[in-house]
């Protein structure tokens, strides 16, 4: 089986200690976590974990089984990027040199983005989209020597069905 990027989601009780246990499932198998995010879910008191790791499908299944086994986890599932709506938001700090000539125009035409802030030293750009789109903008800014700093959200996902529906019978 082939390794690829899997997105593992888990709805959990919002309790201390669960993150530690979820992370241990990966650490125990020496699987590197590419990104890890915990946020509110639409249901009060329930958190949504979103974890990205590069594994094969058999391992993704085992990881989800092990996460489901944790007391405090309501439901965990795995997806490939095309299996759910997954986006990222990123903030780019770029050099003022981007304003020379028509560089800014060129870049913003190719990579739809928003200018958030500007001062004497740098500009802050915001870009949201698929992971690959963020990667493309990063690469281009880097190549042109314009990138000063980058901060990205990691995958933020929406399940195809509502939380309430996907946890039918549990809540």
């Amino acid at each position, binding site marked *: 089986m082939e390794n690829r990027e899997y997105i593992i989601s888990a709805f*959990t*009780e919002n309790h201390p*200690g669960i993150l*530690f*246990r979820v992370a*241990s499932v990966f650490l*125990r198998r020496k699987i590197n976590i590419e990104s890890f995010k915990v946020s509110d879910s639409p249901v009060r008191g329930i958190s949504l974990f979103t974890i990205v790791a590069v594994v094969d499908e058999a391992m993704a*299944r*085992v990881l989800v*089984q*092990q996460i*489901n*086994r944790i*007391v*405090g*986890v*309501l439901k965990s599932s795995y997806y490939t990027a095309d299996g759910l709506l997954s986006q990222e938001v990123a903030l780019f700090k770029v050099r003022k040199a981007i304003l020379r000539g028509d560089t800014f125009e060129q870049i913003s035409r190719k990579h739809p983005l928003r200018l958030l802030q500007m001062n004497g030293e740098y500009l802050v750009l915001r870009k949201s989209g698929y992971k690959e789109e963020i990667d493309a903008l990063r690469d281009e800014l880097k190549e042109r020597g314009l990138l000063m700093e980058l901060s990205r959200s990691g995958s933020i996902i929406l399940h195809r069905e509502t939380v309430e529906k996907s946890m039918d019978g*549990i*809540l």
Partner: protein
Amino acid sequence: MEQKKISGAEALLFSLNAEGVDTLFGYPGGTIIPLYDALYVHADRMRHILTRHEQGAIHAAQGFARASGRTGVCIATSGPGATNLLTGIADAMIDSTPVVCITAQVPVNALGTDFFQEADIISMTSPVTKWNYQVTSAAEIAPAISRAFFLAGTGRPGPVVIDITKNALVEMLDGFEYEKCKELRCYNDHPVIDTDALERAVELLNGAERPLIIFGQGIKLSGAEKQLRELSERGNIPMASTVLGLSAVPSEHPNFVGMVGMHGNVAPNRMTQQADVILAVGMRFSDRVTGKIGEYAKQARLIHVDIDASELGRIITPEIAILGDAAEALAAMKRTIEARDRSAWFGVAAEQFALEQREVISKDLRPTKERVTMGEVIDGVARATGGDAIIVTDVGQHQMEAARYSRFARTRSLITSGGLGTMGYGLPAAIGAKIAMPNRQVVLFCGDGGLQMTIQELGTVLEWKVGVKIVLLNNSFLGMVRQWQQLFFERRYSSTPMTNPDFQKIADAYEIHHRLVEKREDLAAAIGEMLATPGAYFVEVKVDEEDCVFPMIPGGAALSDIMFNESL
């Protein structure tokens, strides 16, 4: 509802009482003194067995749980007291043993300051507990304890750690209320069984020429002994056990074909490779059971029943996965199972048993050499007890021989560290088993190495007059490691010979009846006297130093590659 003001420590004690706990195994220390004070004041409510090391306390709680089916409880102080529990917690996790460990913790406002005897036991135990929780106020104690017992004992049992900060033990509460936890939305203790899958499973079994049931400890944990036997009898299907499953079915049952695995019986290992359908119940396909996984049971269509969803498909993907309680699943399958003539298939078992008898068993049990074998001692005890004793083992050669040659008439009669293989487990586990089941004979088989890992628990035997029968199979070696060196490292006995103390003097110091057996002709009398003498008894048998446990499937080899002796 008791209206008087009570301390957190008292609330803890009352909560344990509410869960039916009457015995604790533990060891005091500075942080946990408030609980010990409550135990002193309310001595009528709880028996506290002071062990000689916290590892002894948890293994005793494990032995208690495995002998009785009740959740074992141990308590320890913060820091080193708590960390001394770790090995036992890991052992209970991998062997699905219901234990609740209560550890004291530094006061809540001192957490994270490297306070005296602070250890982050929640982080340390997270990977090896089913659940853990830190209590920081007295009001949380009762609900935490009720969850602890619910989680430890239901579904696939396991260890739970409740870490209680000192302030919570001394805070006062206005009265005491206790509500037993019956469910949690984030935990399914009782999955509904897919009846479709059950039907397909029975169909598969009914159509099978060479079906085999392989069962594990799940049968005991679920209380499915009767259902298993009935399914096997009705369907005329042979059954084999893992080490931890042993005693769930009487050893003499005509359909029982023995133990699978690395040192298991030849018949069930061979039958695993020949079976056309395997029903695996309450077992987890440990590498010690499967050998080389790619070669395992290749002919067989597999049905796997387990209450832990994460076990289904973890090692081997079954054709039919049945999530649920073993007793329920087997009872349902029994209704439509059909008997078939399987004399040829049972013939394979008989034939392979005869082979094992000739190649291994006769040499172990009726040796022609001078030195006594471990097998003779274990067989002697099995005969003398009629298979009625609870057998407890430590880890090593004697453990495998005890599993091979003990006879079991009743369930929950073998207590051994399976998944973790924890040396030092035996003596304290035997103490816990005897305390749980005072009316049963409890016989411990241990090695000279493992005994010395927790030998201080002889003090617990002394203080509490625990009537355990200790059989030391002394080969002056870390025998099982030496066996591997002998077979696979050209007899380079690196750090496995042992210079031992005079164990007779040690037993004497602890005021335990003792006897040394060096000659075969003294063995039967020693066993007889040991069993007949009330109270604890220590028999040391000097056994052959270089015996190996056979048959053996070397690690990583296929089940078909069975070694019968050193040269094969």
